[in-house]
């Protein structure tokens, strides 16, 4: 009898911890096998050309946050996946029904978090797998318990804040933060996995958001340093009706790369932004 595997039988474990709220997960690789082509060709043989890598893409609802950050915290974000934007690698297991596959030496390449009023915040990640990818995992996957059922944090006007230098009193409709972290694997002769993976630089950060303006003034479209660069951009996402900060992003010297004003007869005025910055590490 043909069976099917549905969501309750699928789970992702990264470095021993379960990733909750997954909306979609894609793990894939393209073989680097290349056919031998030669003069007088009389058979087809394949050889691997270039390093074999795989990719992992995960989209999750942000429903499971780490404990609030304090001076003893070993992480910088309460979103577990964002903490892999540094130089830390991860291994993991994907369970599907009674089967599972694993991967090692995973490195996050892109991370984005987004939310808008009335929605649950989401994150998307794309990672590259430099190590192994296949069956016969040598570590265990996590076990979901009843207590680990997460609570939903639906976003409201009061839970999102964006501070752009001196402008603070504008209602935020939505925002998204995207972080791209380059990786440089170093391969040496005689090995098919990198000897080292260098956390590249610079890290590119893009911030998109939409506000219903109050005291905000449209900036001049010319590239004027004093007008189009925000010295300090702070984005804060709080738990509804609470001062409990779930996510907080703070970026220096963000360049305003696009700005769009929209007015309509049945809605408030809105302004959309894209800010861009690079972080050197």
């Amino acid at each position, binding site marked *: 009898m043909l069976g099917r595997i549905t969501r309750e039988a699928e789970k992702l474990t990264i470095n021993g911890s379960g990733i909750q709220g997954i909306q979609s997960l894609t793990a894939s690789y393209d073989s680097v*096998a*290349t056919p*031998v*082509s*030669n*003069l*007088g*060709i*009389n*058979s*087809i*043989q*394949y*050889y*691997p*050309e*270039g*390093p*074999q890598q795989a990719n992992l893409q995960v989209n999750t609802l942000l429903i499971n946050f780490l404990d609030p950050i304090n001076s003893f915290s070993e992480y910088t974000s309460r979103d577990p996946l964002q903490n892999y934007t540094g130089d830390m690698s991860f291994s993991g297991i994907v369970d599907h029904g009674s089967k599972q596959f694993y991967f090692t030496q995973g490195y996050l390449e892109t991370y984005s978090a987004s939310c808008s009023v009335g929605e649950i915040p989401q994150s998307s990640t794309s990672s590259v797998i430099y190590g192994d990818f296949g069956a016969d995992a040598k570590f265990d996957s996590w076990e979901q318990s009843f207590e680990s059922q997460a609570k939903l944090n639906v976003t409201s006007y009061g839970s999102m804040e964006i501070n752009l230098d001196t402008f603070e009193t504008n209602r935020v409709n939505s925002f998204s933060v995207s972080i791209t972290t*380059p990786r*440089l694997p*170093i*391969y*040496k*002769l*005689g*090995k*098919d996995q990198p*000897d080292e993976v*260098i956390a*590249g630089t610079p890290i590119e950060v893009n911030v998109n958001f939409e506000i219903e303006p109050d005291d905000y003034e449209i900036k001049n479209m010319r590239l004027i340093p004093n007008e189009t660069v925000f010295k300090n951009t702070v984005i804060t996402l709080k738990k509804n009706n609470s001062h409990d900060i779930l996510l907080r992003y703070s970026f220096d010297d963000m360049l305003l790369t696009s700005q769009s004003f929209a007015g309509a007869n049945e809605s408030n005025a809105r302004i959309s932004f894209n800010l861009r910055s690079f972080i050197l590490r």
Partner: protein
Amino acid sequence: MARIFYDKAPVEVQALGTNFRETLIATDCSINFTSSQSPIYAVGKKGSIGQFPAAARVGDISFNFLTTITGEFQNIVGIGVTSSQGNIINYLADAIKNSTDSEASGVIIKCAGVSGVGFLNSYSFNTAANSISSSSAAFTLFGSGTQLPVSGRLSGVNAGVGDGTSVTTGIAHGRFTTMPSSLNTVLYQSDAALGERYATGTIYSTDYSINFNHNPIYKIGQEFPVTTFYTTASESLTVSEDVFNSGLKYDETASSYDIALKGLSNTAQPMYVRVSEAKEVSTSASVGLDDIIRTQKTLTAAY
């Protein structure tokens, strides 16, 4: 007129007077045949009085091929190292450079119906992490006695149909190939934080090449040489690492290295190349965007 597609143009090399032959996995091949003509001028005449042969006709043939380490060519023991594997070009280079007899016999080279007796001019191969190794070879064809340097007409050669699809294991690849540990640059350094220690370079790729000089002997009354002598050879090894040796000596110590090129089977017999009494002659460092500083050192040996 025959139009010959590449699948009917295999490159075959055969040692003269033996049954040792190999059809190489060549990716390209070029054949040239030249007849040198010089104009003659005379006092009292504006134009030339004609063009006349200035040298014997010669040909050359060169090709690139994947570095096979288990071809049809088998069971020949190399001279420089005790290897029973490798391709016929590697065997040939090994035999010439270690030869005690100066008189060379050449090898028959065939491609798409055209053939000639060639003397190995140069042979090189490369090996890099996660990449297949490719080689190149170039021969000069002097001809012999009344035999033209290049003969035959273009015609398709059926190479037959081999086995079905498979993953090749008989081509050198950077997956299992490692260089001898003595080839790694090792530098002594004193670090305030780490103390005294040795920094050992990591090898990312290696390029090998050897060039041969041959001397054809011509006699009066005959266009092509009566015999050809092998004279000298120079060998070069270029290693890419991440350690820069700023202390290159005026007279570096000579060392020998046995390079073993392995295929995709870690247990199969590799192809050996012995570089004898090589000295480091240059070192360099370069860096580009989004990469580490890579260094290169070149070692040369002479035969």
